[in-house]
């Protein structure tokens, strides 16, 4: 076991601030942040991955390579639904075949449904640290994630109506505060500052703005680089952008235990991974009379593909237009912009007709 590790996790939206917090504060271990995702990350990942694997696999692999280049000697990979359980094992093999030397902590190995395996996973990261400290850092990081998600939701619902450009600055200052936070008070203060600063900006928002709801797979919809900043692009067109899909809603708060029952007409059982949450959210947006829905999914994503017939029926029943977007490494900014503009025009036109 190494005395001094340099730990990295692949990039995932801005959630790395919370992951960094756990590694540093909970395990008192150095955390290497991989560089922000870029075309290079994507190319590195795509070049070394099997073709038909979903884009998040490729992107996280690329980010691991960049983390190793940046000096990390230990990589931690998370697990989750669908193929994600298997990401780690294959990614480790690919990295070793590329000739990298490193320790790999694959949390999927410990994901057996037994509590003691969770403890084993924590020990693998740093055996000398107290479990109480680790537990507390998990709790505090969860608060950070909640603040991050709440702030992000608020930001994209409103930034399109800020004529001053202040919103963007406040948001990014908040993000960098989260990366710098070393204690719960730091987290709370960063959050309070952002809330206060937002309040000071006068928005010019119409009483009934165009509202679009976004759903999609766990990675692509939450990672602005992967979805080519779809939320910012829509907001800049003057749209109130809503995305319920985030870690807070789906994992921490889980306030809707009866989602499946509410959507049973469309889907009696879970159709895998993000499906139930997505369908429920789509229905929720539709019931609240949103102007449109956008499904953001990675190429080759199974559950998101499988729910497309459900979304089609939902769209018909609620008379809500749906834009289906599939992202792979070929998807371009320009191409996306064209489709978003066309969708926006259509949605705006429908309003005029129905008025």
């Amino acid at each position: 076991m190494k005395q001094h590790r340099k730990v990295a996790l692949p990039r995932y939206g801005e959630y790395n601030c919370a992951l960094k917090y756990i590694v540093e504060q909970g395990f008192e271990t150095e955390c290497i942040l991989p560089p922000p995702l870029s075309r290079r990350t994507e190319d590195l990942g795509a070049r070394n991955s099997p073709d038909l694997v979903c884009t998040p696999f490729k992107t996280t692999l690329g980010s691991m390579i960049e983390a190793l280049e940046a000096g990390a000697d230990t990589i931690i990979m998370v697990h989750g639904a669908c193929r994600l359980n298997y990401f780690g094992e294959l990614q480790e093999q690919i990295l070793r075949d590329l000739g990298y030397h490193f320790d790999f902590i694959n949390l999927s190995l410990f994901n057996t449904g037994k509590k003691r395996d969770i403890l084993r996973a924590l020990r693998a990261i740093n055996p000398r640290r107290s479990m109480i400290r680790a537990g507390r850092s998990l709790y505090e990081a969860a608060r950070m994630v909640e603040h991050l998600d709440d702030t992000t939701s608020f930001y994209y619902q409103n930034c399109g109506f800020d004529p001053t450009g202040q919103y963007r600055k406040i948001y990014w200052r908040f993000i960098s505060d989260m990366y710098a936070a070393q204690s719960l008070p730091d987290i709370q203060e960063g959050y309070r500052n952002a809330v206060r600063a937002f309040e000071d900006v006068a928005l010019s928002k119409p009483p009934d703005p165009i509202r679009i709801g976004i759903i999609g797979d766990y990675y692509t919809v939450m990672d602005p680089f992967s979805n080519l900043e779809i939320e910012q692009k829509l907001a800049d067109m003057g749209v109130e952008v809503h995305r319920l899909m985030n870690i807070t809603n789906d994992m921490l708060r889980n306030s809707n235990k009866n989602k499946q029952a509410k959507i049973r007409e469309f889907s009696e059982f879970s159709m895998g991974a993000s499906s139930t949450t997505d369908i429920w959210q789509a229905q929720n947006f539709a019931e609240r009379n949103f102007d449109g829905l956008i499904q953001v999914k990675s190429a080759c994503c199974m559950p998101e593909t499988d729910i497309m017939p459900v979304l089609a029926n939902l769209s018909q029943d609620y008379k809500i237009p749906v834009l289906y977007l599939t992202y792979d490494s070929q998807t371009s900014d320009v191409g996306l912009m064209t489709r978003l503009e066309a969708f926006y025009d259509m949605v705006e036109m429908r309003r005029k007709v129905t008025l």
Partner: protein
Amino acid sequence: MSEQKMPMIGIPRAMLYYRYGPLWERFFQVLGVSTLLSPPSSRGILEAGARLAPDESCLSLKMLMGHVETLIGRCNCIFIPRYSNYGYTELFCTRYEGIYDQARNIFRSSGQRFITCNIDAQNGFPEAKAFEQFGVELGFTAKESRRAWREASRALEQRKKAEDRSQKELAGKPGIKVLAAGHSYILSDPYLGKPILDNLDAAGVVTLRADALEPETARKACARFSPTCRWIVSEEIVGGVLLWKEKADGIILVSAFPCGPDSMTNELLIRRIRGVPILTLVLDAQSGMAGIETRIESFLDIIRFQKGAMV
């Protein structure tokens, strides 16, 4: 046809039918429920399925939806069981979880009834209990359903044993041996995998199959080789490859475009297995057998060359 005259249950001859067919059929038979099996796969069925299913679906799902279509209006309800898991770390491809609801949505306007049996051990429905509940839903007593299930699972076990036996016989034969690895609903499908197997036959090659092996033995082999692989079916295929590869002169990995689990397990196999030539064939809805024959031919040439060089 009047409601009464129609068979009770329609069964699509696709996807998990190739794995659990004997079990389902025996279950219905013991209970005295009439069934209608969709016709063998054909180009027409696949094309219909490709039209109905989302574009980006895998070939197997498209084929399934094509089979469902042939049953619409010809039976009281169409049976699409939902195989989700056998336990916390014993999972199936997420696609199997969604096919029942997906079919309900795709064929919503037809008014066709669908029925499922929900196998979800994580939520209290291991296979035996799921089928008991299913039997009760069909109007039988719990006891009758349990009996039917017992007989049905025995039927499946017997078939597995027979496959395992004939496989061992094949392995003892002389001549060049090729190990075909893929989902049984690909390899055994008369329109998808069968032409490949026929091709190998015609070339005078003995074809072993990775999916014809006692499941428990195969999964154990896979667990050592790839501990985080948790798709039961993929584990069996990977395990089959590991256990038969010594006997084979070459391995052909056959998969459906764009199969989620295969995209990963096949990559791992290619990276970790040394010393046996491997050919990967990915079947999709458009290209059919074109090009595949030549690839098999040159693969066999390589094998023959290697064998010749060794003698």
